[in-house]
């Protein structure tokens, strides 16, 4: 494993760690959803990098599927956030 690859893996891992901190810390549900969406996007980049490292081109398909699932889950969460019953909505 060459030095640039190690640095790149380290940077993405650090970014995922920060994002995980935000998932735990985020004060409201939308903040956590933003962090989870970013985490899925980071996992996409990590998978592409891993595909290059192991010379397995099939892993690029995994990255595409991850992008699809991240988009669907974000839209579903947004729908849920908009439709849920909040205490101040009940009159």
């Amino acid at each position, binding site marked *: 494993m*060459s030095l*640039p*690859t190690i*640095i*790149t893996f380290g*940077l*993405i891992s*650090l*970014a*995922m*760690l*920060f*994002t995980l*901190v*935000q998932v735990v*810390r985020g004060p*409201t549900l*939308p*903040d956590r*959803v*933003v*962090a989870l*969406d*970013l985490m899925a*996007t*980071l996992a*996409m*980049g990590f998978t*592409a*990098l891993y*595909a*290059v490292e192991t010379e397995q*081109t099939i892993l*690029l*398909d995994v*990255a*595409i599927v991850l*992008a*699809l699932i*991240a*988009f669907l889950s*974000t*839209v579903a*969460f*947004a*729908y849920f*956030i*908009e439709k*849920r019953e*909040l205490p*101040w*909505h009940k009159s």
Partner: protein
Amino acid sequence: MAQIMSMTLFLIGAAFMLVAAIGVVRMPDLLMRLHCSTKSATLGVSCVMLGAALHFSEVAIWARALAAIAFLFATAPVAAHVLGRAAYVSGAPLWLGTLSDELRGRYSQESHRLTSPPEVLEAGSGKGTVSG
């Protein structure tokens, strides 16, 4: 040569991703967090995908990488918009230093429909209401 270029793209992409993560942790507000994470992470993943395509340099891999980048560029703004709208409508708190909020009071509480300001509605009366 292609290896050097792909490694450079990997490093640039990882740096963009790290900037996105730092922004998500540091920003005080949901909308600012969306602003950080969406654009920067999309650019970072695009750089990494281009680097992978350069590394393998086959037609099928190029097609896959470009398809992934096109999908990201199409879906990331939509997801951010939908999430930001849902959070704003459901009353997510804005940053205390926010200077102007032009959408305040424009969303109806029941239907979540957006209406124009009164002066616009008066100027355009007779041509129907503008809603989005």
